[in-house]
């Protein structure tokens, strides 16, 4: 392990971490702007031109607010909860290939922190770990509403993880690999997986809405029933961590959807661009395309939030167990049969 490798990875991690935070910050602004647009309002427009400094103002407000730890709470776990939530949200970015290898100063640098050969499963592991932040925080608050919300979050996550895992199996049958780098590499040009797995993508997308606790599945923070949900007792930056974790989760799951199903950094005409711009700029354009797709998905998350009302809890469970899981299993069987027929003839 030479030092150049370590420095290269360190810079990459720092850049990705910074980008995640900035995107999460501006997602809060975008959410309010999108909501305003959909409801025919103006949205935040006071801080800076078009209200562009609003996230900074909100951040400063979060830092300056009084730190309140309830006396009857479990102090250590109360603080560990939001930290864990943010940590789990951030480490998912490690296996996502942000672009094809780029040539900088005569050195080819892969734009992926780590290409482990179980990359897809790693993402699942991180997703399943994410619920601990909510559970621990909700329990340590020693508030019945927080606890109810934590329990909702846990059962929702476990239920939808199953459908998510099953929907991805159909994709893996086609790609024959668990490495995200290879999965993205196979979708060269416009050969995207979504054309072959539309149903799988639909199931995966619905499940990622549930996994990130986004509307219409944001039952853990259903304010009409649970006050504020699992972060009722939180104030100041600890609340900020929970909100930030939700936006980073949204960013990461958008990136995963774009990489698994929508071709990642591939786009039609990329060979032409690669031939004309050389190995330094062409991959960076691919990365820009990838981020464009991610932004589209984030916009979609927000669009759905302001369009579809929140589900009732039994509707959520019915959809997960009786709707999505049988559909995902049917999808696996159909995919398997079709692959067997194609290989035979």
């Amino acid at each position, binding site marked *: 392990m030479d030092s150049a490798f370590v420095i290269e990875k360190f810079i990459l991690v720092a850049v990705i971490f910074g980008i995640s935070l900035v995107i999460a910050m501006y997602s809060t602004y975008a959410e309010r702007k999108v909501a305003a647009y959909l409801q025919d309002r103006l949205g935040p427009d006071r801080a800076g031109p078009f209200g562009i400094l609003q996230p900074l103002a909100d951040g400063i407000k979060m830092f300056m607010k009084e730190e309140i730890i309830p006396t009857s709470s479990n102090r250590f776990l109360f603080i560990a909860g939001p930290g864990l939530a943010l940590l789990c949200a951030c480490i998912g970015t490690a296996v996502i290939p942000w672009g094809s290898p780029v040539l900088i100063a005569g050195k080819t640098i892969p734009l992926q922190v780590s290409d482990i050969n179980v990359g897809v499963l790693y993402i699942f592991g991180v997703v399943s770990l994410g619920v601990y932040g909510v559970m621990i925080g909700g*329990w340590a608050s020693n508030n019945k509403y927080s606890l109810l919300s934590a329990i909702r979050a846990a059962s929702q996550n*476990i239920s939808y993880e199953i459908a998510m895992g099953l929907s991805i199996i159909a994709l893996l049958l086609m790609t024959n690999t668990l490495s995200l780098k290879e999965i993205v590499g196979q979708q060269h040009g416009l050969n995207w997986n979504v054309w072959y797995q539309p149903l799988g993508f639909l199931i995966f997308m619905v499940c990622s809405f549930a996994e990130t606790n986004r509307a219409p599945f944001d039952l853990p923070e259903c304010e009409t029933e649970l006050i504020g949900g699992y972060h009722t007792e939180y104030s100041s930056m600890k609340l900020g961590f929970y909100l930030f974790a939700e936006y980073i989760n949204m960013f990461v799951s958008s990136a995963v959807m774009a990489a698994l199903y929508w071709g990642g950094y591939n786009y039609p005409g990329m060979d032409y661009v690669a031939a004309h711009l050389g190995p330094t700029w062409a991959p960076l354009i691919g990365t820009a395309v990838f981020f464009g797709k991610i932004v589209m998905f984030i916009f979609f998350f927000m669009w759905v939030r302001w369009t579809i009302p929140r589900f009732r809890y039994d509707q959520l469970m019915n959809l997960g167990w009786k709707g999505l899981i049988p559909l995902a299993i049917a999808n696996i069987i159909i995919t398997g049969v079709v692959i067997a027929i194609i290989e035979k003839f």
Partner: protein
Amino acid sequence: MSTQVFYFVATLSIIFSLLVIFAKNPIHSVLYLILTFFTFTVHYVLLNAQFLAVVNFIVYMGAIMVLFLFVLMLLNLNNETEPSKSPLIKIVGVIAGGCLVVTLIGSLKSASITSPLILKNPSLGLVENLGKELFGPFLLPFELSSLLLLAAMVGAVLLSKRDEVEA
């Protein structure tokens, strides 16, 4: 390097396992158990069994322990609600524990340090090789165990549905 990491992680495993037993609060016990499972995941990675590591991570840490935590949070056990144990139970516990210690010492006395096992194929734990093994020579046991799991699942659903049928 790898040996040092092993000893470090193994120490952590033992410490966390002990904390699982000694923690007063059942929720803390479960959280320590999660940490113990995490150290097991690191052990699997050190053994180059990536698939096993990730599955241990997803299934044990991510699903089973969430359910444990779930149930314990609903039960809300704490010192005030816990019934005080009678001295008889304590005596029985001491005797049973003593028997276990004697058995363990007896079985460990004859044990000797074995030479480290060298795998013929160090990449056996990778997904591809594991899949080929499972779906090749071990296909029948694999399918049978899946049937067993299915039977258990149907049984669990049946048990939870019984009230509805009677009512």
